[in-house]
């Protein structure tokens, strides 16, 4: 169980993910709709974990991840990704992301990954 910041540019995805995380007993620290907001919210909320969408307006997920990792090298960031984005995810992992979840989200897999990353 941990506090989680959800970053995605669509309210739909955020809601979906939020409900999955709730069902796993996690606390939602906050939400952000783009990379810029994500960084600001991370500083403010200091969540245990961030779920980060890759494709977003303004600042994308990879750049936001890098900034967050600079601010806090121990930050746990899980990328939200889709089939076909392997290269992006690899880039994210190399940049310090701790895990990834694949859309369309399957609740058990999402919760497993979150649990594992929180435990790491």
């Amino acid at each position, binding site marked *: 169980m941990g506090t989680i910041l959800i970053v995605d540019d*669509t309210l739909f995805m955020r809601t979906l993910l939020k409900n999955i995380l709730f069902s796993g007993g996690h606390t939602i620290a906050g939400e952000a709709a783009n990379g810029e907001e994500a960084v600001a919210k991370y500083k403010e909320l200091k969540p245990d974990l961030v779920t980060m969408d890759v494709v977003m307006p303004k600042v994308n997920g990879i750049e936001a991840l890098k900034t967050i990792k600079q601010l806090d090298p121990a930050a746990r960031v899980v990328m939200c990704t*889709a089939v076909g984005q392997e290269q992006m995810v*690899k880039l994210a992992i190399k940049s310090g992301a701790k*895990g990834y979840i694949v859309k369309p989200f399957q609740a058990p897999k999402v919760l497993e990954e979150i649990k594992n990353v929180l435990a790491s």
Partner: protein
Amino acid sequence: MSEFEQYRSLFVAESRENHENLVNFLLELEKGTDQNAIDEIFRSIHTLKGSSASMGFADMERLCHTMEDVFQLIRNGSAVMTKDLSNTLLSCTDLIEEMLDDIEAGGDSSSKNPDKLVGELKSWLGQHGAAGPEKPKAPAAQKIPDAPEECGQSPEIPTSDAGPEYCMTIVVAPDCMMKDVRALIAIQNLEALGTIHTMQPSKEAIDEGKFDGTVNLTMASEAGEEALKTAALGTEIASVDIRQTEAPAAPQATEAAAVKKPQEAEKKQPPASADKNREIKNLRVDITQLDHIMNLVEDLVINRGRLKQIAEEHKIKEMDEAISMVERSVSELQSLMMTIRMIPLSHIFNRLPRVVRDVAQYDHKEVEFIMEGGETELDRSVMDGLNDPLLHLIRNAVNHGIEAPEVREKAGKARKGTVRLSAHRDRDNVIIELTDDGAGINIEKVKKKAVEKGMIAADAAATLSTEQAIDLLFQPGFSTADKITDISGRGVGLDVVKRSIESLKGTIKVDTVPGKGSTFELLLPPTMAIVDVMIVRICNRRLAIPISSIVEVANFKKDGMHRIGKGDVTMLRDEVLQILWLNEMVGSSDRCEILIVVQYQKRKCCIPVDAVEGKQEVVVKPLSNFIGTTKGISGVTILGDGDVVPVLDINTMQE
């Protein structure tokens, strides 16, 4: 599917935004390469794909996925956008819109078959040498040349690293998506604990996607077997085999805990205070709920009037004060509700560039479309009714207004025509202007057509003023188009446009200069729900006349009345005014003493009434559909004393 039912409306709402974004940037891209547009398109399609997949709308996902593949190539510069491709993609967006309509109505997009479009995109992808979106799915292991099968056989085993040497086999779960990424995570976690000496397949190969699910490696680490196993054993890792290959150089394996990152301890801060979470500043509200609130506000307005009347009758001072307090709150609530219901015109404007582009392309015309004032706000109900007429006018402007490029050149104009749509607020009205720099309306052609259609006699036509001739355009069954095209002329004429605008309590006006172009001006009330009316009395019955239609109130002298043809007229100062008797509506009265002079556009006429009761703000409730069209009445209102009073509609009354 049912577990996602709760997200349906949210899905539709956001997908529509993304759809709109997609269309607009596709059009933007037609003007020339624009990296921002490409990125935006990619993002919108990507989001549409992801959301539809999450909801289980397979057909929509398939379509979006293929579109995304296409854009991936354009985005990374492997292919360029062409007119044909743009057309196909726009057809795809049309289908997406239909799918969204279907989904909104409770369907699952399967009634709209994307096969044809997906096929077209796939063949385009085939021509542009794309096997897949990002990584060609190469059969993994076979490509790696003579790799050692067992670990420990690696040619160079560096000895400089501290700790014992381990040999590991990591197997990624077979149902894992992106097995290579899982492997990379495991490898990265291991790298944090020691040094990897050999790896099969190599990290580079995994990076390129050449991975079949099993990785063998050797590494030196002081972290200990358990710590290494834990680091590698993440999500979707089916198994991790680990064994030590040589005698430990330094027996520190038990100090695994020391490796634990120092930050770990500080990390467990109390979760950021929960009250900071509640900073949602906007929320989506179902429009039916908003309508319901509006109805309640309207009821309040009516009952406020009733209370006021009771207080006046009984002369209770304390109640008067209380009522004036209530009144203030109700007024504020009412104006707030009005504001909430206002939405910017860009809501419907944004769809129009696509329309212009399609019509222009169909007609082989070149048109520059300019929009201004999209931020002007209108009540939602007005907006709803405005969409179709506006669409029709825009189609007309391109189809009938703008000339073919060659014709324009001959006339000494630029090849490219301009259609300008602008909106602004003017005191109590919103004015929308649609201007084209086309040929203008050919008045003689209009007259000729009207005569041909038997709408008017030839001699009468000859005497018509320009203004009157233009009025003919708005008569039912009139169309100057030489042939019925796919674009306009769908049996919907300007008469329907006019009627729709009038049903919104608006007016439409046309200005045209031959050879220079035309301007259609729509004048609309920003809101229709609450109207200022004058309450009048005829034969002891009450009627409400919208203040906006009234120009003057005068004394009525019976002896000043004359009969011309079938109608009565009266003189008011030097003006001859037609009299509208409301005999049919309320019965004939011989006690009329007051004339209400009303005006619709430039036509003035007058209504004789017995008495004027006063001015009031009322809520106009439209008449139910099954009553049919009622000329002269726009709806009814309930006054404070419970009396139901018809509200006159001067526009239709004069016809």
